[in-house]
């Protein structure tokens, strides 16, 4: 053996090529950006109104259902996308006016209880309207199929479009918050809500607007991701948990933190799933490496969250 060529790696432990790594990084980026759309609304609502909204995942589901229903009726994904924005924003405004408004003065536990009730009501309401079977929502024809990237990677065009679209929405959101009058009010509301109310800003209308904006972002994410996944009742809850992880890592209330946290969670999760089983395969038999690697990969983002909280208890961008 000595001096001979290196023994060929068994198939399960094939070295990761640079191409595969780049493809996985793109996947992580796309996943992170979608998480950002979810987390942005959640963190805005918490930052401005001090409200924990567990029903944020239901708004995500609502967006996906609205998109699927309108796309099925009209044949156009783009009309569906517009419908998802409109439906989620309208539902958000309605929920804020009817339920959430009564909760601002209550403590977080009451808010959690009430918004958990909203999850149940919205889920069963959606089932009542659309039935228990998952809906069909496909990628628009213009964006379907893979494209060849420089370097010879075949990558789904729709995922690339999601990255671009998500970045554009993120940029728009930063402009809105950093450069517009509404943004100034939102930031002022975060800093000192009594003071801006005293200055004559209609705080209750501002709250409704912010809540509807957050809901619209969640609905948009639901519709965009729904085309890749299954549109079904209960699809919002797993994403909600991840969105909470994102805002805890980023610092609750911080939009910058939500962006960094979302990208960190997206990258960690995707690369962890791709790399850990390969890493374990160097020391364990393949079947065990697969299962141990997968088990550890599913814990990875929570380990990252715990690590961040130990180093910076307020999150990366939080006010400690």
């Amino acid at each position, binding site marked *: 053996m000595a001096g001979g060529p290196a023994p060929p790696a068994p198939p399960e432990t094939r070295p990761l090529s640079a191409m595969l790594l780049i493809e996985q990084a793109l*996947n992580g980026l796309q996943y992170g950006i979608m998480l950002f759309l979810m987390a942005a609304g959640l963190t805005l609502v918490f930052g401005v109104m001090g409200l924990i909204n567990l029903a944020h995942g239901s708004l995500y589901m609502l967006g996906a259902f609205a998109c699927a229903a309108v796309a099925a009726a009209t044949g156009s994904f783009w009309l569906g996308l517009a419908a998802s924005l409109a439906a989620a924003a309208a539902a958000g405004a309605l929920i804020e006016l009817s339920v959430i408004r009564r909760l601002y003065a209550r403590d977080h536990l009451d808010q959690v209880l009430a918004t958990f009730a909203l999850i149940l009501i919205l889920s069963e309401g959606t089932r009542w309207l659309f039935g228990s079977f998952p809906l069909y929502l496909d990628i628009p024809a213009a964006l379907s199929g893979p494209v060849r990237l420089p370097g010879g990677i075949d990558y789904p065009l729709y995922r690339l479009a999601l990255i671009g679209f998500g970045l554009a929405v993120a940029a728009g959101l930063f402009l809105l918050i950093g450069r517009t009058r509404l943004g100034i009010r939102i930031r002022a509301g975060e800093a000192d809500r009594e003071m801006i109310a005293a200055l004559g800003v209609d705080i209750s209308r501002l709250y409704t607007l912010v809540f509807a904006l957050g809901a619209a972002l969640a609905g948009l994410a639901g519709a965009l991701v729904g085309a890749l996944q299954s549109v079904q009742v209960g699809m919002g809850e797993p994403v909600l948990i991840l969105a909470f992880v994102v805002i805890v890592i980023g610092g609750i209330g911080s939009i910058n933190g939500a962006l960094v946290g979302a990208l960190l969670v997206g990258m960690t999760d995707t690369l962890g799933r791709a790399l850990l089983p390969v890493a374990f395969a160097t020391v364990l038999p393949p079947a065990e490496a697969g299962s141990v690697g997968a088990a550890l990969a599913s814990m990875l983002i929570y380990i990252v969250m715990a690590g961040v909280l130990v180093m910076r208890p307020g999150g990366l961008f939080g006010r400690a």
Partner: protein
Amino acid sequence: MTFKATLLAAGAALALAGSAAADPVKVGMITTLSGGGASLGIDTRDGFMLAVEAAANPDLTVVIEDDQQKPEIAVQLADKLIQSDKVDVLTGIVWSNLAMAVVPAATAQGKTYLSTNAAPSQLAGKGCNPGYFSVSYQNDNLHEAAGAYAATAGIKRAFIMAPNYPAGKDSLSGFKRFYEGEVVSEVYTQLGQTDYASEIAQIRASDADGVFIFLPGGMGISFVKQYAESGVGLPLIGPAFSFDQSILQAMGDAAVGVLNGANWSPDLDTAANATFVEGFRAAYGRLPSVYAAYGYDTANLLLSAMAKAPVSDTEAFRAALKEADFASVRGKFSFAPSNHPIQDLYVREVVKEGDIYTNKIVGTAMTDRGNPYEDACKM
């Protein structure tokens, strides 16, 4: 004199037969009617009730409860059904973890449990029980069918994938049991995972020539859509759960051509199946799924046993169940000593008929298949 005696005897026999038939049976159905897995439970219930309503047997009453796919709720419901509703027979559970929480306790209290779906290995081998009958299959069966057929379908180097939980591990070992090709990579995903970009990239980078997946419900919908979008294009095979009637419409064109191992298909050519599929479509306006077929068979099995023995005579009633004297929609059907079915396993292909996506049988994977845990069952 002799005439009178004969008449008396006939009268007595009639009275006896009458008493056997008039012995009322109360069935408690625990199944998933809300939450993400509701479509499976709804099909189970609708299939079961189709047979119950067709029989119109006044002695049979059914109490239906929703377990919300939560083991603790299923246990509470079983207690309620047994203690307060005083049911004789329990049925309907879709998920293996719920079955494990309910079945051993129910059979220990002398109740009979008929499984319309979940049949974990623990209840087939050492944990088998005279009061537990699986009418559907043993959990490994449909994976075995896919494995036995994969090499025939030209998949010599398989990339195999399942969620990282007990049924996922059973699935991959079931696939490997009769697979004659080589497994190039074995990947476990997260339970409930919705994004498979990372795994699809691994499939692309591997030198596999086919992919086996066990991803039931929404996981399968997500994977199949993303896989079609990626342009990888290697043939896909899986168990029927990943490609069933209840989810095919949500997958759309992405699922066409996918192979799946099954023990039933809407186009299976038996008289009972034709009646069932037509009746189901007329009653509910959609095609039945495997869950509906198992529910329908379970109800007919129960009705056949009711005609033979009173439910109060537990031993005779269970013996009557074990005879499996009913017209199964699957055609051939009998019980092995462990009360699990012996049946033929098929491979189906997803096709589009008009606007409807459905399955057609393309081959027989195994004939008279029992289950691998039979020897461990002592009863």
